[in-house]
């Protein structure tokens, strides 16, 4: 091991970190400081206001919304360690990346691997500059866990594809400009009849209908395609070879889930602090309910294990490799432990954790937000591949267990 190079590397990166943080602190508008949650609530729509616009403009000019992408595509052109430092610096400075969304986290990395030069130039640049929002046209009413059973068809009409069908659970589609979509281009075979198509949401025949969920919010919609004309150049990769691309994108998605902050809505304090406030303490200063206290301890320790596991995975992929099947392990662990946290929080709140509607005299904002997150995060073990689908992936791809012969 070359220790000298390591030391030099570390010094250089530390200097870069200081530089990045200084820039963010100097340029992040003061008025946006507490808007992080609002921003995430609004995802994937860009919020309004002059300060939002200013912040976006500044980050755009620096290419730091996508710091690791090539400059030719509007990115920052930074090597992986520096790019990671920029993204971390947003968080550490209580700021946020204004470009973040499915374009930066899902479509972008996928196009970098599978897109042709024209597609990369056009679409990556728009994402880097924050000009276009993307949504994900994957699930269908009849194709959830069995995603490859999808039926939305794209027929070859010579100079274009004609798309007909329906997508569901399409997050953010109400505000999206474009949709990356899995379509059936060969009905005779399953995985090998799927293609990866980019569709402009403004094309005639595209209709979006919001779905109201158990949390009372409508984060996703149904999307209907009726005789939608899509130019041939919007096909990514080869015809009928979309399944490989789709799976790669799902790895990026699980990875994004593992690091997402959206799930930390509501009361974000440590559970023991919240419990002491709501339940009180015994003569030794411990949480007064001994059974709940035990479960909180167990949960908090497991949460810490999760953090260590995530750190380990980060260290292991530091060499610049993309996410692997390990993302399935991380996704399952993260989703379960996060849901346990919200189950515990609602229990700790007692009936204060059961409020519905707007916050006010009776229910605090954190209580209402926690209850909402409790409901919406029930999706964590379902979206981007259910726990059961991830377990199939772990068993087959990681442990080498076979299907029935």
């Amino acid at each position: 091991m070359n220790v000298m190079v390591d030391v030099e590397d570390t010094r250089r990166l530390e200097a870069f970190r200081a530089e990045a943080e200084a820039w963010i602190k100097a340029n992040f508008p003061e008025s946006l400081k507490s808007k992080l949650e609002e921003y995430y609530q609004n995802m994937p729509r860009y919020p309004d206001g002059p300060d939002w616009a200013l912040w976006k403009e500044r980050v755009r000019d620096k290419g730091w919304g996508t710091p690791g992408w090539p400059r030719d595509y509007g990115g920052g052109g930074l090597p992986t360690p520096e790019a990671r430092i920029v993204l971390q610096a947003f968080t550490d400075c209580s700021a946020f990346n204004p470009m973040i969304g499915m374009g930066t986290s899902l479509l972008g990395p996928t196009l970098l691997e599978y897109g042709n030069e024209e597609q990369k130039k056009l679409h990556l640049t728009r994402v880097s500059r924050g000009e276009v929002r993307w949504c994900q046209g994957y699930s269908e009413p009849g194709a959830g866990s069995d995603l490859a059973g999808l039926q939305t068809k794209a027929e070859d009409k010579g100079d274009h594809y004609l798309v007909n069908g329906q997508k569901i659970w399409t997050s953010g589609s109400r505000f999206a400009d474009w949709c990356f979509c899995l379509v059936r281009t060969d009905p005779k075979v399953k995985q090998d009849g799927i293609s990866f198509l980019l569709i402009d949401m403004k094309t005639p025949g595209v209709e979006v209908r919001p779905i109201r969920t158990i949390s009372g919010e409508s984060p996703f919609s149904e999307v209907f395609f009726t005789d939608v004309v899509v130019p041939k150049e919007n096909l990514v990769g080869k015809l009928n070879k979309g399944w490989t691309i789709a799976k790669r994108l799902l790895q990026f998605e699980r990875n994004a889930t593992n690091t997402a902050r959206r799930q930390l809505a509501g009361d974000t304090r440590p559970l023991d602090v919240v419990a002491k406030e709501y339940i009180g303490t015994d003569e030794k200063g411990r949480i007064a309910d001994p059974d709940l206290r035990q479960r909180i301890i167990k949960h908090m320790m497991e949460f810490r294990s999760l953090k260590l596991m995530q750190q380990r995975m980060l260290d292991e992929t530091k060499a610049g490799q993309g996410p692997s099947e390990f993302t399935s392990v991380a996704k399952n662990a993260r989703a379960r432990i996060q849901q346990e946290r919200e189950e515990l929080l609602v229990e700790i709140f007692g009936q204060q954790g059961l409020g519905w509607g707007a916050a006010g005299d009776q229910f605090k904002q954190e209580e209402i937000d926690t209850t909402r997150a409790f409901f919406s995060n029930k999706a964590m073990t379902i979206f981007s591949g259910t726990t059961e689908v991830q377990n199939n992936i772990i068993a087959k791809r990681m442990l080498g267990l076979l299907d029935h012969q």
Partner: protein
Amino acid sequence: MSLLTEEQVMLRDSARGWVKANAPVSAFRRMRDSENPKSFDEATFKSIAEMGWTGVVIPEAYGGSEFGYRSIGVVLEELGRNVVAAPLIGSAVGAASALVLGGTEAQKKAWLPKIAEGTAIAALAIDEGPRYAPDKIALAAKKKGKGYTLSGSKTFVMEGMAADVFVVAARTSGKPGTEKGITLFLIPADATGLSRKGRSLIDSRGYADLTFEGVEVGADAVIGQADAGKALLDKVLDRATAAVAAEQMGLAQQAFDTTIEYMKTRVQFGQLIGSFQALQHRAAYLFTAMQLARPTVDEALQAIDEDRDEVPELVSLAKAAANDFINYATREMIQLHGGIGMTDAHDAGFYLKRARVLEAAFGSSAYHRERYAKIIGM
């Protein structure tokens, strides 16, 4: 930073190679069946010492390599995978740490080189009842002239039958349960008034109960500060506990690997049992749980090497995680093997037995969760 250094990777590979060549599970089985009174094979231990693993936490000045705790963890994991019986944790980690951290120059010179070269075995004498409870130490050490007289008993001393010398936690003042009044002593096994009796446990290793009947020692037997040894004791116990957790992870990894292998060969209903989704998901849950447990152990050992303030809480996190996982992994190992796992001819029983002993050693999950909670103030 939780990844292994190049040096540690080499250590792991050499340990893996050594175990394969010198100490497969069949060697442990032979040792068990031979009713060896020391409960480990002397030739195997000699070879372990020659590999340098008895000196990994001992400074070079005293004949060790001082590679550190993460490094001994790497070795213990590999030995754990094959249930290798050797007096390493009590001697080369536990007692050695007590001397390195608190010993006088004379004590270090007298014992550390011998521990490092494997010619002497030292043991930690802590427990006094069925449960690990270092806060409740009662064994009395009364001041007599310049020295002390020890009376009382110790139980379940790991490697206690083979030990040449004991690190004994005693009470020089105060009541059991109070922090002040703990003193560590270094007492040779042949001291007058000290007797020991073997205890057979399910894992076929050597455990002893010690009886102290007016054992007289000089002031030079004290390790660290007299009457204020709690801090040193905690440090020593954290190191031994983290070492146990490392062995547990090795044991668990192999229990898991053996089980997955079995699922890939056993046929029922005309299918490999590993192709049944009900079992595939059990394997996936088990694998995920292992990924959550492993980094806690590595982090605790790393924190010890870096002498971080958070060592106590990380060690408790690691021991609770390793305990819970090894318990789960060995239960699944037996169940997924079916009838064959119930037989003595199969190795599964060795893993289950060693697992339960290590779970109780240096604290159950309940103990460590409570300790963790206290440390973080809940």
